[in-house]
């Protein structure tokens, strides 16, 4: 029983890592007033770029760099449409998602002739699990030993990076000058502008940070958690991250817990399949699959109270009206 719980928590950590990265990416963007539904597209684009570069150059790190470049480029397109041209954020986001879904497969077909996939990655082309010091020695210590050696140790470096990013994001958003301005520009851009700070440049920086984090999330999917790119492999994780962002009320630590909850529900869903619950019979896979979404609606509707986003989110900033 205890072993099963540890295994489920272990799966939770693996599954929530990309969600945390993407949700934090969304946090930077939305706190600055840019709605980002294109998290999904950026993850997918980065997953492809990372896997392709890793396959060609033989290094997961080079893959990561290319993943981040691809994701930042997409973020800048989003920024160009929404900030410079004051376009609708949702329309631009959906456009990016659609373009990436098609482009990754088309480029993949052209480059690798594998039906839109990249070659399978192995060895240095992937981020492999790291065994923390003393993990084997600690194995036999009751309770703590299991937690340390199985749950905390044995993940790849991007998982640790995802969890480190939570306090880092907290510090940036709440304790630095950039963070203060970031929050201000999402609440009241006019005030920021009056103070002589460029709203445009601030928002561009926010979407670039968003791009970097999404890039890491995408590289995690294709070069760490899996071994290669497959079409549409992001499978809605960007949208899950967006839900977690709203769920966590745009604050880093609650957002992390929301992601962990989604990850845990996924781990439970995987275990629960085919299990016969007394009185109910076998739980159908569709019911389990929809659990995270149903729970989000239920919790949002009844338990966590109103989720109020940044005031100026989704509204293009116009300096003055003639």
């Amino acid at each position, binding site marked *: 029983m205890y072993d099963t719980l540890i295994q489920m928590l272990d799966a939770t950590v693996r599954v929530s890592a990309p969600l945390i990265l993407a949700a934090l990416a969304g946090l930077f963007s939305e706190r600055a007033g840019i709605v980002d539904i294109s998290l999904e597209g950026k993850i997918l684009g980065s997953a492809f770029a990372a896997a392709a570069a890793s396959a060609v150059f033989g290094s997961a790190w080079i893959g990561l760099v290319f993943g981040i470049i691809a994701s930042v480029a997409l973020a800048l397109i989003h920024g160009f449409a929404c900030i410079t041209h004051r376009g609708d954020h949702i329309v631009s986001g959906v456009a990016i998602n659609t373009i990436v879904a098609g482009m990754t497969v088309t480029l993949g077909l052209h480059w690798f002739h594998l039906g839109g996939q990249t070659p399978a990655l192995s060895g240095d082309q992937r981020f492999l699990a790291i065994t923390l010091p003393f993990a084997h020695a600690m194995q036999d210590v009751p309770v703590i030993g299991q937690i340390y050696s199985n749950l905390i140790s044995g993940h790849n470096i991007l998982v640790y990076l995802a969890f480190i990013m939570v306090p880092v994001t907290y510090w940036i958003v709440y304790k630095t000058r950039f963070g203060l301005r970031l929050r201000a520009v999402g609440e009241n851009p006019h005030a920021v502008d009056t103070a002589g700070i460029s709203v445009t440049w601030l928002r561009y920086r926010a979407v670039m940070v968003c791009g970097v984090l999404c890039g890491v999330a995408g590289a995690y999917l294709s070069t760490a958690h899996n071994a290669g790119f497959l079409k*549409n492999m992001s499978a809605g994780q960007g949208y899950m991250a967006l839900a977690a962002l709203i769920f966590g009320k745009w604050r880093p630590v609650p957002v992390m817990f929301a992601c962990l909850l989604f990850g845990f529900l996924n781990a439970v869903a995987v275990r629960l399949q085919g299990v016969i619950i007394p009185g109910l019979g076998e739980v159908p896979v569709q019911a389990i699959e929809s659990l995270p979404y149903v729970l989000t609606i239920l919790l949002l509707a009844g338990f966590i109270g109103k989720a109020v986003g940044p005031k100026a989110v989704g509204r293009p900033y116009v300096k003055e009206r003639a």
Partner: protein
Amino acid sequence: MKGVFLASVTALAMSATLAHAATDKPAVVYDQAGKYDKSFNEGVYNGVLKYEKDTGQKIREFEPKNEAQVEQGLRRLAQRGYSPIIAVGYSMSAATEKVAKDFPNIHFSIIDSVIKLPNVQSIVFKEQEGSFLVGALAAMKSKTNTVGFIGAIDVPLIRKFSCGYKQGVKYIAPKDKVIVNFVGSTGAAFSNPTQGSELAKSQFSQGADVIFAAAGGTGIGVYQAAADAGKYAIGVDSDQNYLHPGVMLTSMVKRVDQAAYNVYKSAAAGGWKPGVVTLGLADNGVTWALDKYNQKLITPEMKAKMKAIRKDIIDGKIKVHDYSVDNSCNM
């Protein structure tokens, strides 16, 4: 006189085109995975290549890049008089049915789906028989008396695989446990290696040491998880043993290459017929893969046993239940 002459020339020309249409212009439309998918479509492509090599005749190929192009592609080929046209995969059945109705003189062959039209040939496979074989092999290899199955979607086609697999396992070891999981309920379940690897890890932790994945691209995640955990996996559709030598116990192969080859061959000989063609073990339509990548995993006794089971199924001594007949897997 002139009129009669013209008319007869036109008639001649027309009959010539018709004759051409029926035999000389073969074509194929792959599904969106493309002809290099290492699996289902690539199987058909290999059949196409073989036919081109054997006869020197060129086969017109079309690879749709999205859903909408499937019907456009079929329609354009039909308009230009290509026949027979092979439609690869059950996802094309709606488009094929529509186009086939509009072009009653063109012959269509669809793989993995049944369309009841006078100009459509439906080629289906007895997946349950091949799955029975790999199930038996999985039970022979398993040391934990627990094996796993991971399917993409909970639909009758995939249930055919899981039901046959279960029967094969129980034939060898009636007390063995079979863990059955499905990835999801939409088309995305065929390309979600992340979920595939999570499901595989879960099954391994529940004691499974051999997993059969009938889930398209999702299988890649399952095989990777098996390689990382030092367990065994079984591939599907085409021979995937080479993906992870030493990890892939075998593959349940559907000989779509042969099916495609035979369509063109029979059409060239004028023997193309509409209706349902069912390919099983007896026709070598389905089989288990044994090659240099997995031969170290298979002992001579296992090989002999597999041969015996195969023979018994063909002779009818072992009856493999087909899930799609009554939508249940009661054995």
